[in-house]
């Protein structure tokens, strides 16, 4: 049916064209349009966030239904979610229609003493794996790897204050590496990525790329 397939693609093209043209229009009507459209998308953004949370919950519910090995752990996802939603809506007594939970609420307590430590610790584990990989995996097999490891060593040593004790030149060379060769290469990569991003936007506008439309007819 045309209203399931072709009309959305037409909407994409028209919305894209309006977004493209308003960038070149100086008339205050363009900034008024921009304010209205961005307010709309801010409100829709809230619903989009819910879809993200729903799909994650849905996936874990599926695991509990199908019971693959280790499904028991998915129960803790629901326990954690229930705890937070419960304390959040309770909101230290003032209910869901008042302002966001404050400093004294159990919601804030669980965030500060469970989510913050877990989140920062899980990522800090990578430092250990970085160390073990430094010993076993980062081998200068090819010329490229030699250059990479040399530059990495100079930058790593130049960035910590202890290098001042050895000689001030380490941080100077490290700054030079960052401000000239690194800058040139990153600018080259950035330009390549930007041209790719424009081509991608173009494919979306002309309906060539439609994977975001989702499955189904």
């Amino acid at each position, binding site marked *: 049916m045309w209203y399931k397939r072709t009309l959305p693609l037409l909407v994409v093209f028209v919305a894209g064209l309006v977004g*493209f043209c308003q*960038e*070149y*229009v*100086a*008339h*205050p*009507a363009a*900034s008024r349009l921009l304010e209205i459209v961005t307010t709309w998308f801010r409100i829709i953004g809230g619903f989009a966030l819910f879809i993200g949370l729903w799909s994650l919950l849905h*996936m874990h519910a599926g*695991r509990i239904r199908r019971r693959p090995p*280790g499904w028991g752990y998915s129960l803790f996802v629901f326990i954690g979610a229930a705890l937070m939603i419960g304390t959040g809506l309770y909101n230290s007594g003032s209910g869901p229609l008042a302002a966001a939970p404050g400093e004294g609420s159990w919601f804030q307590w669980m965030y500060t003493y469970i989510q913050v430590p877990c989140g920062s610790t*899980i*990522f800090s584990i*990578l430092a250990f*794996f*970085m160390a*073990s*990989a430094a010993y*076993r*995996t*980062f*081998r*200068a*097999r090819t010329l*490229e*790897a030699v250059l*990479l*490891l040399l530059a*990495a060593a100079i930058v790593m040593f130049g960035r910590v204050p202890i290098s001042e004790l050895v000689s001030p030149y380490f941080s100077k060379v490290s700054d030079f590496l960052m401000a000239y060769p690194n800058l040139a290469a990153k600018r080259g*990569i950035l*330009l*390549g*990525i930007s*041209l*790719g991003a*424009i*081509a*991608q936007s*173009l*494919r979306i506008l*002309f309906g*060539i*790329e439609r*994977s*975001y439309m989702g*499955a189904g007819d």
Partner: protein
Amino acid sequence: MRPPADTLACVFRLLAAGALCVWAGAARAGGLAAPDASGFIAYDRPSDDGSAIAVLWPLSVSDGPGVYYILEIASLEDYREGVFRPATPKPIPSLGSRASDDPQYCSGLRRPETLHYVAVFPADIYPPSRRPIPPPNEQDPEDLARYTREAGREEVRLKEERRCINAQTYYFRLAITDGAHTVYVGEPGAPTVVSAAAKPNLFKGYRTNNLVFSLLFCAVVLGFIRLARRRPHLFIRRIPALDAVEEAIGRATEMGRPVFFVHGMDGLGSLSTIAALTILNRVVRRAAEYDVRVRVTNVDALVTAVSQEVAKQAYTEAGRPDAYNPDDISLVASDQFSYVAATSGLMVREQPGSIFLVGYFYAESLLLAETGAATGAIQIAGTDSYSQVPFLVTACDYTLIGEELYAASAYLSREPLMLGSLRGQDVGKVFLMAVFVLGTILGTFGIDWVSTLFRAF
């Protein structure tokens, strides 16, 4: 650039006008020469939202340190009563305020460096009157809500008021002064008065280069996509990584050990996953010829399903439909950490001969590559997540960086979408390279029209 003959004529005319002023002014007020009245004009500033009026006047011979200009403005009513007020908070220094200082709005003028230029904002000089709103008391939410509504409505009213103020006609008078003497531009008794009204303009003139570049680049990319649809054998140079793929599968055959293909974390929406599927097709087809088992691990249900289809098709293309085993291509986990744990476990248990890490990776690329290196297998990585490329370059034998991954999949699949986009982007890169080199060389020799052409405001 105007032909040289024309500029000479213009300079000569300016000099003559300057000389005339000097002769006229010198006689009257202690050496202060007012600029030529005919050059003193006011007009709506182009390419803006109608909030500014531009005022231009030629240089005066007595421009110099200590010499200032005083620009005066009057609305319609003030002009009728002959009342003028200063248009700028401080007098305008005669050495500065050139039209060339503001290329965003003055690039259209001829020889902007020889003209004084000031942008006047009428709404700042005749500000709208702000209706006082009784401040809220913090505790009462009703009062707070009322205050917010009234303040919001007042803000909208003021914005509308400012727009009306800007739209009126204003009259300007100019005087040159060195602190002691003040000489008005125009006839000694009756200073010249010019008038203008600001209008919102449609097109941002200073964005022309942006518009031209965007339209040209879009035309090139779309053109090449259509071309690639008609002629799939558009030239793309052979990617060295493809030889490494052949060698890796050959190695796995010698050792009689399986080949591992590890997908990235992103779903079907990301370009690198689509490219990974193309490379998976080639890997499975080559492995089927050498009768090597291919084990595919991924983290997304959709990608798993599509990978199974790709593998089945590849096995039939290689004439070995019986070798296809759907269990080899499986969804081993659903999130980052369990994916790494499951895949590493499989690697150590099944000891692959060669490992492919293709797709968009996050922090887990380091762990996968490390375990792969520990099993002694040849590792080939392909990713467009530039934050993971450094680790993959040191840990793997060969790494496809960013667009090389897209080029490799375009080379294999000849898919018009990828082929056309790559070719279009290559044209863009050639253009950028040419502008860099040309701009720098010309800039070194003082010719800067290339950099002004690409100035972005």
